[in-house]
């Protein structure tokens, strides 16, 4: 097993190298650069724009640009953003905790709810509960997420009042929206207790994110469980006279969770990439918006930083998933 892990880690190096070349090439094919946003700005002369383009080396041939980038990156310097002129790692380090905070909570919440619901739904297949769950899961996956977020704001922020306004919990005098329409903290003159404030700001964005993931996970869990429930070894367990609870939790769950493990392992790297729609709707300064803004501006050092970390995480968590299989299913061996 150890040898297998080491081999996979060594293989990752050339993979990352190829990824870096491909990603860099693709970014450079896009015809914009960080100065393109100034092209029609009457406050800067075309001469000065041209001078800056040369200063930053935007018109250098692509292999020169790549060489510059890779040589500084190998020395541990990811370069500076061309837009904010701050180190790429500073930009990422500033956004990543916000993303982890929002997406991480939504992810865990979705998982904690999805696993029991998916299992019950499978065990009581075709029950009223099962029908309700499948309907909900179907809707959760098909609602346009952007629209759903706006609905949450219109419903719970613009049109509902906070009944606790003016109390110790929310010192702000009424009227105060039930939940804030965005942002991470209260910026007014009457901020609530920091912990209350955090939770208060998280409710709507976490709901928006979790509903979609929940719907997805429930379907995987239910399907995995259904696959397992009618297999011989479960029947054997029942025949041995084991209690229902023991059959489900000890024998069925481990195998039923396999598809979900794959999905989760591949989803964890996405936590790093952030959730663009949720971050946009709820004014949450996370990785999704950093990536989107950088792509829009053609800020390629930042893009490369995000994409390379993301690629590394994907490779790593694929390995984790493979190792987890071996743990969950003794039939799988790597040596």
């Amino acid at each position, binding site marked *: 097993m150890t040898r297998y892990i080491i081999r996979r880690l060594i293989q990752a190096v050339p993979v990352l190298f190829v990824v870096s070349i491909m990603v860099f090439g693709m970014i450079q094919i896009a*015809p*914009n*650069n960080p*100065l*393109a*946003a*100034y*092209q*029609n*700005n*009457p*406050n*800067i*002369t*075309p001469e*000065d*724009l*041209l*001078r*800056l*383009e040369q*200063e930053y080396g*935007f*018109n250098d041939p692509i292999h020169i640009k790549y060489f510059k980038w890779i040589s500084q990156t190998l020395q541990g310097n990811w370069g*500076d953003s061309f837009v*904010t*002129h701050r180190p790429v790692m500073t930009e990422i380090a500033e*956004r990543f905790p916000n993303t982890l905070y929002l997406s991480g909570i939504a992810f865990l919440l979705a998982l904690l709810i999805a696993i029991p619901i998916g299992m019950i739904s499978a065990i009581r297949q*075709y*029950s*009223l509960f099962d*029908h309700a769950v499948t*309907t*909900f899961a179907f*809707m959760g996956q098909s609602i346009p997420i952007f629209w759903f977020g*706006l*609905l949450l*704001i219109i419903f719970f922020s*613009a*049109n509902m009042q906070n009944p606790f306004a003016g109390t110790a919990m929310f010192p702000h005098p009424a*009227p105060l*929206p039930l939940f*804030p*329409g*965005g*942002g*991470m903290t209260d*910026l*007014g*003159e009457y901020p609530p207790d920091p912990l209350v404030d955090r939770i208060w700001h998280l409710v709507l964005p976490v709901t928006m994110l979790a509903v979609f993931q929940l719907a997805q996970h429930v379907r995987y869990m239910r399907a995995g469980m259904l696959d397992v429930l009618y297999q011989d070894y479960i029947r054997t367990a029942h025949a041995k006279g084991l209690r229902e609870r023991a059959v489900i939790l000890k024998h069925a769950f481990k195998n039923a969770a396999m598809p979900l493990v794959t999905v989760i392992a591949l989803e964890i790297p996405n936590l790093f990439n952030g959730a663009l729609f949720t*971050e946009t*709707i*709820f*004014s*949450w*300064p996370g990785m999704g*918006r*950093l990536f989107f*803004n950088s792509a829009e501006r*053609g800020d390629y050092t930042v893009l490369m930083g995000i994409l390379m970390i993301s690629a590394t995480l994907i490779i790593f968590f694929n390995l984790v998933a493979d190792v987890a299989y071996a743990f969950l299913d003794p039939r799988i061996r790597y040596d």
Partner: protein
Amino acid sequence: MNARKLVLVFVALVLTFVLAACAAPEPTKAPAPVAAPTTAPAQPTVPPKPTEAAGPKKGGTLTMVVWQEPENLNQNLSTMTVVGYVAELAIEGLVAVDNKGAIIPVLATEVPSLANGGLSADGKTITYKLRKTKWHDGTDFTCDDLVFTRLVQITPNSGSLYAIDFANIDTIDCPNPNSAVVKLKNPRGDWWRYFSGLGYAMPKNAGKPEEFKTWAYNRKPIGTGPYKVTEFITGDHITFDRNPNYWQEGKPYIDKVVVRIVPSSEVGLQLLKSGETDVMWNNTEADLPALEKMPNVALFAAPQPGGERLILNLTKPGDPSDNKTPHPILGDLKVRQAIAYGIDKDSIIKNVLNGKAIPGAGELNIDPYNCNIKPYAFDVAKAKQLLDEAGWKPGADGIRVKDGQRLRIKYQTTTGNKLREDSQVLVVENMKAIGVEFFIENQPSSLLIGSWGANSPRKKGNFDIIMYTTNAAIDPHSQMFNYFHSKNIPSADNQGGANYSRWNDPETDKLIDQAGALFDWPKRKDLYCQAAARVVDGASHIYLYGRMTLQSFNTRVQGWLSSSWDGPLWNIADQWLK
């Protein structure tokens, strides 16, 4: 089983209804249509005046939402509009432009002019009397700070935006800390924009010039303005606290200003409605129906400078080095004028812009440089007659033909802009009616309006007609010079040139050159207007419409004076909260 299916259908139906109910916007609460004082186009709303008797109230927190993330707050390093609109809370120019377009003194105690001797007759020497005030960190604001700012600007590879402009400053002498003598190599009509738009004064202790790009100052600038930056949380908010030592006695009134970054304009509108924010910058025509229904919101609307236009290529597309051979179709003045007469601008404004725009007339359309050029009338008969005279005769399918060539023209704009795409459809219809075939071939804006190095068609002259919006700055010289002077026809030697229509008219060149060297505003205006009129007559740019600057304020905000030239908080020192 059947009973279960019924239950399932029932549950689904209930859920659908619940969602539908959520979706229905504002069911019954429609407020009486009294509140929002929207204005007819062309005249700004009269903002609420502070009541004389009570006087402005002190205290409170004002919140503004902006949809873009300011990349920093240093206007010597970034010229994004949002950066300026936020940084102006802390940073002041030597002079500023008020909401009427007049130049007013700020850090200079008076605006230098020929009359007061601040400006020399040859326009090369400008003498500023500087205000005795302090930077936010307590050090004195002096002439040395101007010297330092110039040094930063001209330091090679510093990332500064205005190196070429500042290279035109020969010396800055400091006879005493509170006066500055700026000597220019070449006089320029917009001299007043130095340190007042073309960069702003920075304190000499801000950092080393060669490390300019990475100064901590860039995110927390030290200014002289009414507010100081106390917190900059990237992508979330920027907080400003009142500067107790502000040079205007007793001002500002408001204690704290918070700028929140809200990327979605739908959400911005909800925050405005719920009162979570007081000011929203950059509303669009599409927001108007919602804004007009908000009883707690006052709206500012005034025409924007410049506007959407068709830029016609007067030279033959294909060879970037050839800027002489006329365009086979658009090289003919009569064809260009026919296109101008054939477009129904009013219908575009009515159908695409909710009626909230003004018909495009010319390059300079608002004060202080309003040329009052008459827009081309919508005149189908005239358009047809011009095409007949030019020798283009209707063919079998109604599209005109001349010497076997079809009157077919490529019509491009940026992709993904619904407003532009909708107006394109109307223009294509208009053209069909006069026997001209426009075919659409849109491109992403980064490609269409990119740089020479990126092979942008407008730079390389490889287009027939491109449509987009551009505008002059408050001083029109740069726009007039770059877009219409023959020197600025883009070429391998002048890749920055912006005369995309290849308008080559010695008379226009002469007018722009003369105006650029003058300091007398009325005379300059006259010359620029003559040049702008020549462009309109020559129909190298065909102006479609000018949009409105739309800013919204909660009714508790008093004392605002908006203008199209600046952000909603430009006069924050005079604003207060009811």
